[in-house]
C-alpha cells in the first residue's frame, strides 16, 4: 500500500509545498548555536524548560553535520538524570547510548540511577530504563543487564516484557557468554500470552539464535501460530521466517499415492469395462502423489492466510515464501493476487516485488497467466522494471490462450521497435526468442516469422539482435529450418547490419549443405560464390565468416569426393550414397539448385548475376553445373581465391585464420582432423530466462535481488531452506502439546475451538470481547480486550467527572448486551465442538 505521505502528496498541490517551504525556511531562534559554557549553564538549571532547551541543543550538535564535539557535556548531562522531569529523560538516555562507548567510565556512573528507574512505578519508565541500560555498550555491565532482563521478564507490564525481549539481543551482542541465560529468558518470553511481547520475543529469538535452538519453539508453536494475526508486522515477519524453517525441520513430508480424479469418460469406461480391472490399476498415470500435511503445519499455513491482506509488502512476500516452499499446490495460488497487488506500491518496492514475482513465476507460471495485463510495459518505467516485466510475460506466454499470446507478441514487437532504447530492443527480441521455444509449433512458427520480418527493419541494432535470436532458434532444431536458412541467405542482398550478415553466413555454412547435396555444396556454395564477389565491401566480422564458410564447403566437397571415390566412380552411386546419408531428400534438393520449385534460391542466384560487376570468374556458375574432370573443380578454385583474398586482408586475425585453414586443408586426402574441427556439431545455445540463474536463492532474500549469493544468506548448504526432515527423525509432535491449564486464558483458544481463527484480527477480538466479561482484566495475561476494558473504565470515570454521566450508563448496558452475545457465541462453539 502506498504510504500515507505519498497519498497526501497527491492530495496537496505544489503551491502548498512552496508556501510551507517559504515559511519554514525562515530563521529559527532555537537553532542558533550557543557557546559551550552557556549550554552547561542551561543544563545545570533547575527549571525544566531550560534543562530541556540545553539538552535539545546538545542533541542537535550531536546530529548536526559536521558533527560537533558533545562529549564534554557528558557529566553535566548525566547529572540531569536526577531530575524527575519526564520530558528530559528520553533525551538524556539518547545521549547516553550514543556516548557511552566513547567514555565508558563516565557512563558507568549512570548505571545506578538507571537501575533505580527499573523499579519505577510507571511501566514506561521501567521499559525505557531497561532499554537504555541494555543499549550501553560497555561489556563489563553485561551481568547487570542480564539481571535486569530477568527482572523485566517477569514484570507485570507487557511494555516492560517487550523491552526485555529486545534487550536480550543487545545483551548477547554485548557479551556472548550471557547466551545461555538469555536463551532461558527467551523461552519464557516466547510463551508470553501478550501478542506483542511474543512478537518481540520471536524477533529477538531470530537475532540471538537464528534458526538454531528450535527446541525452544516447540511448546510455544501453536500459540504463536494463533497469535500471528495480532502481532505487529515486524513480529509477523520474524515469525514467518522462523516457522518456514521450523516446518522444514520438524514436519516430515508425507505423501500418499491416490488415484487421480477421473474424467467423465474414464468413469463410463470403467463402468463398462470392469472385466479387466487389473489393467486399469497397473496404469501409473492414474495415480498422483498427494501430500498429507501435518495438522500443526496446516495450522500455521491457515493462520497466516489473513496476513495476505497486510499493507506491508514484506509480509506478503514472506507469506508467499512460506506457501511456495511449504505447500506449493494447496496454498500458493492464494498468494498470487496479493503479490500482484504489490505492483501498485511505490517504485522502489515495486522493483523488489517484481524480482520476487519472477521467482514465483519460474516455479508456477500458470498462476500468473490471468494477470498478464498487469505486466504490460509502460514507457515511463525504469529499465530494470521493464526487463523484469518482459521476463514475466515470456514466462507466462506458454500458458496463455492464443488470443492473449498474439497480444503479447504484438506487445513485444512494439517494444522491439523503440529506437531510443537499445537495451529494451534487445530484451524484447530475446523475449520473442524465448516465446518461440513454446512447445506449440504454431506459436513458435509465428514468433520466428515475426523475427524474420524484423530483419527488414532499418534499425541495425534490432536486426542484429533479431538475427542472433534466429540463429539460436535454428541451431536448436536445424532439421525444421532448412528453408529458413535459404530464405535468410536471400536476405543477404539487403541486410546491412554486420552482425546479422555474419550470423547468416555462419548459418549457411552450418546448415545449408543439406539442401543441395550434389557434392557441389548446394546453396552454401552459391552463397559463398556471391559473397566472395563483395568481399572487399564487407566488414571484418563478415569476412571472417566468409572465409569460414569457404573452408566448410571446401571440406565437405573433399569429404564427398573421398566417399565418392571409395564407393564407386559412378556418379549415380555417389548420389545415392549422399541421399541415404542425408535423409533421402536428394531429388528435391537437386532441383532446388537449378530447378523450379524453390524460387528463392533461383531468385537470389539471378540477383547475383544482375548486379554482378565485371568479375574475375564469370564462368564459375556454368562450370558448377557441368563438372569437367580435367579442369580443377570450381569449388577448389573458389577456395583458393578466398584464401588469397584473406591473405591480403588488413586484419591479423583473419590472415591468421586463413593460414590455419590452408594448413588444415592442405592435403586433400586426409580430412579427418579438419572434419573434427570444422564440422563438429555445435552445442545448442541455451536461452534461459534471465532470472534462471537466481532460482536457487530464497524468495524475499537480498541475494535474489542482487543476483549474487551473499554471505550470511548463503550457508555452506546453499542458499535455500533446509530440506524436509526425513520421516522418523523429526521431533516428537507431543512436544508441541500445550498444558491443559493454560487453555482459555488467551482469547485465541476459544477461536481455535470454533475454527474461526482465519479471519480474526485484533479488532475482531474487540467485538467478541469479554467472553470473560469484566473479569478478564484481573487475569494475569491481559488480552487486547482486557486493555480496552481498562481504558473504558477510565474513560467512564473521566466522563462522569466532566458531567457526562450518560456515557457511563451506555457502556455498562453495552457490556451486558455484549456478554449475552458472546455467551450465545460460546454456545454455538460448543455445538460445533461436540
Amino acid at each position, binding site marked *: 500500500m*502506498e*504510504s500515507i505521505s505519498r497519498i497526501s502528496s497527491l492530495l496537496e498541490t505544489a503551491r502548498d509545498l512552496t508556501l510551507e517551504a517559504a515559511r519554514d525556511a525562515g530563521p529559527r531562534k532555537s537553532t542558533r548555536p550557543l557557546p559551550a559554557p552557556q549550554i552547561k549553564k542551561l543544563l545545570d538549571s533547575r527549571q525544566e524548560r531550560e534543562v530541556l532547551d540545553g539538552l535539545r541543543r546538545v542533541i542537535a550538535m550531536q546530529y548536526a553535520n559536521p558533527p560537533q564535539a558533545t562529549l564534554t557535556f557528558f557529566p553535566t548531562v548525566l547529572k540531569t538524570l536526577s531530575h524527575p522531569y519526564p520530558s528530559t529523560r528520553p533525551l538524556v538516555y539518547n545521549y547516553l547510548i550514543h556516548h557511552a562507548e566513547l567514555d565508558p567510565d563516565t557512563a558507568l556512573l549512570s548505571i545506578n540511577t538507571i537501575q533505580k528507574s527499573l523499579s519505577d512505578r510507571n511501566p514506561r519508565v521501567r521499559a525505557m530504563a531497561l532499554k537504555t541500560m541494555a543499549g550501553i555498550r560497555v561489556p563489563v555491565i553485561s551481568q547487570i543487564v542480564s539481571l535486569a532482563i530477568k527482572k523485566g521478564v517477569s514484570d507485570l507490564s507487557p511494555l516492560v516484557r517487550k523491552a526485555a525481549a529486545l534487550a536480550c*539481543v543487545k545483551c548477547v551482542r554485548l557479551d556472548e557468554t550471557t547466551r545461555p541465560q538469555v536463551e532461558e529468558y527467551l523461552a519464557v518470553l516466547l510463551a508470553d500470552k501478550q501478542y506483542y511481547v511474543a512478537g518481540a520475543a520471536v524477533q529477538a529469538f531470530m537475532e540471538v539464535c*537464528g534458526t538454531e535452538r528450535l527446541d525452544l519453539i516447540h511448546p510455544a508453536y501453536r500459540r504463536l501460530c494463533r497469535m500471528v494475526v495480532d502481532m505487529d508486522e515486524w513480529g509477523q515477519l520474524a515469525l514467518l521466517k522462523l516457522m518456514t524453517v521450523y516446518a522444514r525441520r520438524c514436519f516430515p513430508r508425507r505423501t500418499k499415492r491416490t488415484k487421480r480424479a477421473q474424467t467423465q469418460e474414464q468413469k463410463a469406461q470403467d463402468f463398462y469395462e470392469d472385466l479387466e480391472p487389473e489393467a486399469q490399476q497397473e496404469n501409473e498415470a492414474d495415480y498422483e502423489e498427494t501430500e498429507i500435511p501435518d495438522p500443526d503445519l496446516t495450522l500455521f499455513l491457515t493462520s497466516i492466510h489473513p496476513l495476505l491482506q497486510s*499493507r506491508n509488502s514484506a509480509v506478503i512476500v514472506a507469506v508467499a515464501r512460506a506457501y511456495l516452499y511449504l505447500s506449493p499446490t494447496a496454498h500458493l495460488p492464494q498468494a498470487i493476487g496479493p503479490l500482484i497487488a504489490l505492483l501498485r506500491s511505490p517504485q522502489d518496492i515495486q522493483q523488489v516485488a517484481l524480482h520476487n514475482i519472477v521467482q514465483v513465476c519460474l516455479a508456477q507460471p500458470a498462476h500468473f497467466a490471468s494477470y498478464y495485463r498487469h505486466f504490460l510495459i509502460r514507457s515511463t518505467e525504469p529499465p530494470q522494471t521493464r526487463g523484469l516485466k518482459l521476463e514475466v510475460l515470456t514466462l507466462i506466454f506458454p500458458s496463455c490462450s492464443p488470443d492473449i499470446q498474439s497480444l503479447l507478441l504484438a506487445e513485444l514487437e512494439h517494444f522491439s521497435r523503440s529506437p531510443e532504447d537499445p537495451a529494451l530492443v534487445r530484451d524484447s527480441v530475446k523475449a520473442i526468442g524465448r516465446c518461440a521455444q513454446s512447445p506449440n509449433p504454431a506459436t513458435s512458427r509465428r514468433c520466428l516469422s515475426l523475427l524474420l520480418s524484423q530483419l527488414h527493419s532499418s534499425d541495425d541494432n534490432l536486426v542484429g539482435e533479431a538475427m542472433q535470436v534466429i540463429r539460436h532458434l535454428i541451431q536448436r532444431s536445424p532439421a525444421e529450418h532448412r528453408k529458413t536458412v535459404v530464405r535468410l541467405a536471400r536476405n543477404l542482398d539487403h541486410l*546491412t547490419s554486420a552482425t546479422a550478415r555474419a550470423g547468416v553466413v555462419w548459418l549457411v555454412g552450418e546448415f545449408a549443405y543439406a539442401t543441395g547435396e550434389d557434392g557441389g555444396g548446394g546453396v552454401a556454395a552459391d552463397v559463398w560464390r556471391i559473397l566472395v564477389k563483395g568481399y572487399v565491401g564487407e566488414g571484418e566480422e563478415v569476412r571472417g565468416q566468409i572465409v569460414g564458410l569457404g573452408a566448410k564447403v571446401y571440406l565437405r566437397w573433399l569429404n564427398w569426393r573421398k566417399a565418392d571415390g571409395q564407393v564407386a566412380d559412378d556418379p549415380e552411386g555417389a548420389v545415392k550414397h549422399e541421399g541415404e546419408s542425408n535423409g533421402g531428400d536428394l531429388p528435391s534438393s537437386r532441383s532446388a539448385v537449378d530447378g523450379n520449385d524453390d524460387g528463392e534460391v533461383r531468385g537470389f542466384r539471378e540477383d547475383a548475376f544482375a548486379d554482378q560487376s565485371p568479375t574475375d570468374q564469370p564462368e564459375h556458375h556454368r562450370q558448377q553445373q557441368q563438372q569437367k574432370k580435367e579442369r580443377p573443380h570450381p569449388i577448389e578454385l573458389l577456395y583458393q581465391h578466398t584464401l588469397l583474398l584473406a591473405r591480403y586482408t*588488413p586484419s591479423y586475425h583473419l590472415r591468421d585464420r586463413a593460414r590455419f585453414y590452408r594448413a588444415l586443408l592442405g592435403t586433400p586426402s586426409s580430412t579427418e582432423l579438419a572434419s573434427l574441427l570444422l564440422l563438429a556439431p555445435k552445442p545448442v545455445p541455451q536461452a534461459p530466462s534471465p532470472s534462471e540463474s537466481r532460482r536457487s536463492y530464497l524468495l524475499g532474500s537480498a541475494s535474489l535481488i542482487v543476483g549474487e549469493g551473499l554471505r550470511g544468506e548463503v550457508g555452506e548448504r546453499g542458499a535455500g531452506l533446509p530440506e524436509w526432515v526425513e520421516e522418523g527423525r523429526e521431533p516428537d509432535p507431543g512436544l508441541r502439546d500445550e498444558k491443559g491449564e493454560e487453555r482459555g486464558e488467551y482469547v485465541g483458544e476459544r477461536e481455535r475451538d470454533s475454527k474461526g481463527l482465519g479471519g480474526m484480527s485484533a479488532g475482531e477480538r474487540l467485538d467478541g470481547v469479554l467472553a470473560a466479561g469484566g473479569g478478564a482484566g484481573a487475569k494475569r495475561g491481559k488480552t487486547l480486550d482486557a*486493555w480496552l476494558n481498562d481504558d473504558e473504565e477510565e474513560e467512564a470515570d473521566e466522563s462522569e467527572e466532566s458531567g457526562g454521566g450518560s456515557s457511563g450508563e451506555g457502556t455498562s448496558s453495552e457490556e451486558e448486551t455484549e456478554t449475552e452475545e458472546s455467551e450465545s457465541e460460546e454456545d454455538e462453539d460448543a455445538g460445533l465442538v461436540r
Partner: protein
Amino acid sequence: MSAIEAVYIFDEHNNLLLTHTYTARPAPPSILLPLYLQHAAPRPSVLYFPSLHPPTVLYSITQDNLLFLSPSSFSSASPATTAEPLLVLEFLHRVADALEEFLGSPLLAVKIAAHYDIVAQVLAEVADAGVVCQGEANALRDVVETGPGVLNNLLGKVGLPGSAGVPGLQGGARGPLSSIGSSGSGGGAGGGGLQRPGSGLQALQPAQTAQGTAIPWRRSNVRHTSNELYVDIVETLSVTLAPSGRPLAAFAYGSIAFTCKVSGVPDLLLSLSTGGKGAGMGNRGDQLRAVMERTVFHPCVRLGRWKSEGVLSFVPPDGRFALCGYEVDLLGPEAPLTVGKNTYGSLGLPAGVEVTTGLGSSANDFEVRLTQPTTSGGGGSAATASLQSNLSGGSGPGSRSGSFKPGPGSGDSKAPSLENLTVRVPLPAAVRNVTELRPSRGEARWNPADGSVEWKVAAKDFGPLGAVLRCTIQGPPAADGDDAGAELNGMTATTYDYNDDEPSSAYQTQDSQEKRSNGAPEPVSREARVERSRELMPTSATLSFGVKGWLASGLKVESLLLDNKKSRGLGQEVKPYKGVKYLTVSREGIELRC
C-alpha cells in the same frame, strides 16, 4: 534476522542531514553516497557494493526530495541474520511517515535540522538496536517527548485544522456531506471547529502515560475539542492503449486516506457502494469485492466484517493514515480481447488522446488530438454521464453563477472539475528539433533536455470539441540527404584499404558500413522519406490530469457511522463532522502507443 544497521538522510542536494547508527559499524555515509551516485539514474532501490569491506547492500528511498539510505553489511558471523530487502524498504517508508507525523508534511530539510531532538527520539523508538519494533507513527506519540515548547510550534504542522499548514485538507473541496448516514448533521459544529486554533490538544499533557496503549496503533488519551472525520479516496489511473485506441489494460489504483480527529476510542463503520457496477451479483459485499480487487488494509480493519459484509469496521489511529488500498480493473474482470466491446469511451474517463504520425508533405509532422470520449450507447456508468454533463456545463460561461473555476475551491462530488490536463509526447533521441508547434488550445513546449513535447491545456479551454496539437519534427542532418559526403567517405576508405594498420582498418570497416547504410538511392522517394521519418515519430504519448470529486471506479462512500455503543470516551451527544473527498489522478497514467 533483520537488523537495521543505520539510517542516513540526505537533503535534495545530497548533503548529509542526519546519521543514526543502530548497531554494528556500518559503512559511513561519506563512502556510500558517492557509490550510490555513481549509478545512473533512475537508481535501483537495492544496490550491492561487493568492493566495500564488508560487502554492503544499500537500500534507498526518496521521499519529498529527501534521500533515505540504509546500508546492510554481509559479514556477520552468524548466518541468517541478514535483513530482507522489503523489510528495510518498508521500514524506511515508515520512518519517513513517522517523521512526517511529527514534523508535518512535506518533510523538509530545514524541519529536520530544527528538530533533531524529536527526530532522534523517533529514530530510536522505531527500531531498538536495529530490531524494528514500532512502525505505527501514531503510537509513537505516546513515547516521543516533544516537550512543552515544541508542541506549540508543531501544532501548525501536524495537520490539525485551523493552521495554514495543510490548506489542501480544509478547503471547500469537501462538501459537508449531508447525504452521509443518518448522523451526519455535524456541519455547523465542524464549521466552527475549522477556525479554532489547535489549543484543544492539551499542550502540556505528558506523553508518557502510565499504561501502555490499549490498541497498538492508536495513541492513548486522545482529546479533541472539535471531532472530525475525513475520508479521502484517491484513485491513480494506469491505462495502456493500443495504437488503435483500444484499451489493453486499464486499472485504477485506489487508496483510502482517513483522517480521524475524534476523542477517546471511536469505533467506526465505513460503507462504500459501487455506484451501480457489478449489480446483480450476490449481496452488497460481493459486489463491492468484485469491484475493489486485491485489497490491503491497515491492521485496524476487521477482516472478518469485510469478508462477511463488505464494510470497513475499525478503530482508527488518531490523525491521518492510509486505511485501505485496492485496485479496480476498469475493463471488467473477464474482458474479451475483441475490438467491439471495449472502447476507450466505455472506460468513462474525462479525456482521451489520439496521435497520428507521418503527416505532411514530407511526413515530418505528427498530430496529437485531445478528445472528450463519448459514451457509446450507454456503456458508461451513470457517474460518467453526470461527470460529462457537469464538465461541459461547467465550461460554459455563466453556469453555476460563475463560481466554477479550476482551483482548490471547486470540485466537490456534485460538480467534478478537471484540471492539470497535460499531454507529454516523448520523442526519439534522433530528433534534433521540433520546428513547429501549433496547438489549437493551450500551450505546447518542446523540451530538448528530456526530448519531449509537453502540451498543457487549461480545463476551461477543453470543450467537447477537444483540442489539436500539430508538430513538425526535424531529424538528424544525415537524413537531409548529403549522399556526396557518404560517397566521399567511402572513397577515403578505399585508399586505406591496403594499410595493415589495425585501427585504420577498423575505421575502414565502419566507413564501409556507413556507406552501406547511407548510400541510399539518390532520388529520395516519398516512401523512403516516410520510412526515414517514421523513426523520428513518437512511439508513445501520455496523458495526465486530475479530477476532483469523481472516481474512475464509480465507488461512493455510502455512510460513515460512529458506533456510539462500542466507542469509548466519546460523549453520546457528540456528532463528529464528516467530510468526503474524491480525487482521480492520472500522472502520465494514460499511455497511448503509436
